[in-house]
């Protein structure tokens, strides 16, 4: 197990380094440079622009800039916002908690809806119920999350007045954003659970369980589902990035504090250090979540550890 962990960890380091280099390079793609791109908002003279380039070190060769960027990062310094001059690391750390909370809540919603629906469809495979469940799932992946969010606000906040309109009021404020974000994911989990369970229900050990006289509920929930849910773990890891990206949009719908509001404002202002920081942190988080998933997988499935 320890050697597996080490191997897996060793694979993660170069990827994180790659992420850092890539976020650095994205900004180099700007036609002209960051200073001329900001010209529109700041209205600088040619001399001021030159001074700013000098101050930001943009006149140095690329590898020198990259070296400086890496050295800063190593100290936890993500640079400063071009507007307001706050440290990017501070801006991100004060906002990321809310986004992670929303992402996890949405994942929970997705599992609570998706797993039972998938099991139901698998048990009733080929019946009208199966068709209804899979069609619902197909509809679920097709609905834009931000639109669903608006419709939930319309129904539960404006018309019925049951829930707060903005998503910043504790647990009650989390319900609608989490549902809006989680529904598409629930649909994906439904499909995955269904196909995985259908396959497993045809295996010999399930037949054995049935043959020894277990009631169907025990066969499905205790014997088959446990193995059917393993691929779900991988799916959760893979979908973390999608949900996290979706959270950025959903936060805008519900005027919720978080990385979404921060990133969106930064994109509109062309505040490169902030966007760079948000994107990099999201990617690193994704890699770490997948590392965690792989470790959990190894715990759950001995074949991986010793394979």
């Amino acid at each position: 197990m320890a050697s597996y962990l080490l191997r897996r960890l060793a694979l993660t380091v170069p990827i994180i380094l790659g992420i850092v280099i890539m976020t650095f390079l994205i900004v180099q793609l700007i036609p002209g440079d960051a200073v001329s791109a900001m010209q529109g908002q700041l209205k600088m003279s040619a001399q001021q622009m030159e001074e700013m380039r000098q101050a930001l070190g943009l006149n140095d060769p690329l590898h020198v800039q990259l070296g400086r960027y890496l050295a800063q990062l190593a100290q936890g310094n993500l640079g400063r916002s071009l507007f307001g001059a706050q440290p990017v690391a501070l801006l991100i750390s004060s906002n990321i908690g809310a986004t992670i909370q929303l992402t996890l809540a949405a994942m929970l919603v997705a599992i609570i809806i998706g797993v039972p629906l998938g099991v139901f469809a698998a048990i009733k495979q080929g019946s009208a119920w199966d068709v209804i469940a899979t069609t619902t799932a197909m509809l679920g992946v097709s609905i834009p999350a931000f639109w669903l969010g608006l419709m939930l606000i319309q129904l539960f906040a404006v018309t019925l007045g049951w829930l707060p309109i903005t998503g910043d009021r504790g647990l009650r404020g989390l319900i609608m954003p989490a549902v809006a974000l989680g529904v598409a994911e629930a649909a994906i989990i439904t499909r995955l659970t269904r196909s995985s369970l259908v396959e497993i229900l045809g295996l010999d050990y399930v037949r054995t369980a049935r043959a020894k006289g277990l009631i169907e509920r025990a066969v499905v929930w205790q014997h088959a589902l446990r193995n059917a849910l393993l691929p779900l773990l991988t799916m959760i890891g893979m979908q973390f990035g999608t949900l996290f990206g979706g959270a950025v949009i959903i936060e805008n719908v519900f005027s919720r504090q978080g990385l979404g509001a921060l990133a969106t404002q930064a994109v509109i202002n062309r505040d490169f250090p902030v966007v760079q920081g948000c994107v990099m942190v999201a990617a690193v988080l994704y890699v770490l979540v997948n590392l965690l998933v792989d470790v959990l997988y190894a715990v759950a499935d001995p074949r991986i550890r010793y394979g």
Partner: protein
Amino acid sequence: MTKAVSQPISLGMAPAARRRIDGLLRALRRHPSLAVGAAILTAIIFVTLFPQLFTNFNPVLMSIRDRLQPPGPLHPFGTDQYGRDILARVLYGGRYSLVMGAVPIMLAAGAGIVLGLIAGYYGGWADALIMRVMDVWVAFPIILLALAIVTVLGPGLVNIMVAIGIAWVPYYTRMVRGVVLGMRNHSFVEAARVIGMGDSRILTRHILPNTLAPLIVMSSMGVAGAILTGASLSFIGLGPQAPTPEWGVILADGRQFIRLAWWIGFFPGVAIALTVLGANLLGDGLRDWLDPRMRV
């Protein structure tokens, strides 16, 4: 000549073409999601290509007297805060969403085919380099990577299409590479090599056609994803700018007036959902038809 007479002349088709059409009809019957998806998408493409057949209103013409009218006989989808007809805006706006779904996927597929073919066919350091870059690339959530690229390029329809396209490249590269790896050592590729065929000819004549089925399936679902991402980005103000009747832009208007006028945001959302549903169903059906091994 006599042979030609024995053909059903009324159809005026070569037997090969007729067989192909028969095959398509059979597939449509056998895979209902293929038929339903194709029908939905065809209808939406028709309606957005010829919106003037369905509405007499101009999608950008303001008429303050008619502002915030609920759906009724004159305005079936109601009007917005400037008195513009929502039905007209949704119908005319469809073309933006369709383009926003198709163009990024074409860009991504094009780049992915080239990179995937090189990585899979040549192997070695080219493969290692390309695939390690792709490993890093997929770590970025699509929406956030697109956000970063839009920051660099600036907002606008063309720029978000480029951004979404770039974000999708690694998925195509990985898929094409996978297929090529499976093909590379097949005896028919060996045979082509033995008779002296060059690499580029082997790649385009023998290997590329084999990637077509999974490419089509992936692209159909990719279009669905790109439409959703594009609409999300223009909803937060990074895509086409007002008064362009793009669906995400109309939805952003709807958000502002949610207490007063639910219909502004409701109808463009239904349009997006229907289009995405059509593309997803089509992709599902195509997968079952063309490539049953990929079935989830």
